[in-house]
């Protein structure tokens, strides 16, 4: 039953992707309410899925890679709903929906929804640690999306080839401000997530700790470079994309190692 909710949610996000693709192909992209509604609906079904799964597990649904992916997709949609309106909501949605479809599609197709042989006991501090860290990933994902938008606009401005989408992108300086705010939001949440990991009362596997600190260092380096080495906005945008790709790969590693641990 819960998987059906997830399929419906994925279809909602896919509808936003398809609509954007058709509009871009026709060269008449116009931001509208459709993307926001489709993503909003998809978000509701995601939330319903997680609620049912959470009740069944008796804890936050973060017990395997499948649930981690869904929680991450939910975090991306959540951050989009929070920051989207400030930065041309429906257009950011056009960039957000493909990422959510990718995460949920992968989770649904790959055989990773493996239930634990024994029921994982609830541990509020451990669940807080995992969930806050994943919401931080959501912010990093949005920073990555804003980075893509920045690079698309920069490229079109440089080449003097202004496509339909260009006219609906936010101004470059606003977009860069959004990237920085999202990076800070993600970094603060991630720091809180990592710090809380040390107060779970459980021994942490070394691989997980190293991977988590590597992601933290990566984003600390981007922010440090931004403020102390004056890295150019275009490079910050590119680093957001590289950073999130690396963080996602490490998340996979963290979760795999956590399969042998009680929580991800």
């Amino acid at each position, binding site marked *: 039953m819960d998987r059906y909710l997830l399929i419906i949610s994925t279809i909602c996000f896919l509808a936003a992707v398809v609509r954007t693709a058709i509009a871009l192909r026709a*060269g*008449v992209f*116009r931001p509208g309410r459709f993307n926001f509604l489709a993503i909003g609906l998809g978000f509701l079904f995601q939330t319903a899925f997680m609620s049912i799964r959470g009740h069944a597990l008796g804890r936050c649904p973060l017990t395997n890679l499948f649930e981690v992916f869904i929680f991450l997709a939910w975090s991306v949609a959540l951050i989009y709903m929070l920051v989207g309106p400030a930065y041309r909501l429906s257009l950011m949605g056009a960039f957000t929906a493909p990422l959510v479809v990718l995460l949920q599609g992968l989770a649904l197709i790959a055989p990773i929804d493996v239930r634990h042989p024994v029921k994982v006991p609830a541990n509020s501090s451990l669940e807080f640690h995992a969930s806050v860290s994943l919401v931080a990933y959501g912010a990093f994902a949005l920073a990555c999306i804003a980075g893509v938008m920045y690079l698309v*606009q920069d490229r079109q*401005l*440089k080449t*003097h*080839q*202004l496509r*339909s989408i*260009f*006219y609906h*992108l*936010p*101004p*470059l*300086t*606003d977009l*860069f401000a959004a990237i920085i705010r999202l990076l800070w939001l993600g970094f603060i949440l991630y720091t809180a997530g990592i710090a809380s990991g040390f107060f779970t009362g459980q021994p942490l596997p070394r691989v997980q700790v190293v991977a988590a600190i590597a992601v933290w260092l990566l984003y600390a380096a981007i922010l440090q470079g931004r403020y102390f080495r*004056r*890295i*150019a*906005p*275009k*490079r910050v945008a590119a680093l957001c994309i590289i950073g999130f790709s690396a963080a996602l790969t490490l998340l996979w590693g963290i979760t795999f190692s956590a399969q042998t641990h009680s929580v991800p």
Partner: protein
Amino acid sequence: MNLFCVGLSHHTANVQTRERFAGSAGAEHTLRTAGCAEALVLATCNRVEVYGASEKRVSTDEIAQSLLQSSEVGDGGHTSGLPFYRYEAEKCVQHLFRVASGLDSMVVGETEILGQTKKAYQSARASGAVGPCLHRLFQRAFRVAKQVRTRTEITRGSVSVGSVAVDLAQKIFGELGNCKVLVLGAGETSERTARALISRGVNDLRVSNRSNDRGQELAQRVGGQAVQFDKWPQQCREIDILITSTSSETPLLTPTNLEPMLANRVDRPLFIIDIAVPRDVDPAVNEMEGVYLYDIDALRSVAEQSLAVRRQQIASAEAIIAEHVADFLEKVSSELNRVSRITGHPPVADSSLHASQL
């Protein structure tokens, strides 16, 4: 009631002919005396059109005479041979919808015409020249224009060099209120572009010219600040937009001399509008990070891209208009039938819904 449109526009008449009718916007009173039950004059620099509704046919010549009598020129000359067009009923509805949507404009998709149409409607309504027939027609025309604008890309981008430059500046910086602009060279085009930027909120404008007097004159005219010509390179450290149009034979800005100027402004993009021929800025500058260089050809190319997109959108806009014309006529027809049932007059057949029924 006959619904008609009589007029001349840039399609049919040259500016000499059109200017004979300048200031005829208030001709509604004369037109009503000539037999129009309702009348509205749409007079812009590109067209003079009368939209009217009358019980009996008012000839094109009578309308032209009324317009001439009310015009500022008031030459009262002959109207025969003037390239007036006349649209009746369905054609009139279609023509107005096309005009309001900017499809009939010199620059396809321009939106100024909608504002001018609204103004003409308000003025005619205030003078009591607009009755239920024209009211309904114009309200629908405004709806159609809005729909065409939102459902198609007919208004996308700018189609003149000056407005392309200003639009690009807004795409880069967002609000222009905090932008610092340096105008290098006191040419006519750079003045126009500077004025366009000021109209969009630029407050800090500096002007530098080889001849300091001319620089100061321009600075005074646009409310800016004059800068000595030998001091302009230092300004590049502070400014956000550079408009350059000097008559220099060699490039004033190259990557080599621009690089040190950009050292402390890594966060802020620099938008350079080079409208000089030969160019003042080495094209290689565009390769530098955070620098966006647009020369006159690049600006023209963007304007042409926008115009091409607008042209591509004409078919979609025409489809929306056709849909509305059919719907408008159908609604008027069904209403007339309803009225005729109540009053006992013979109903109007759908196919006969033309000038007289409208």
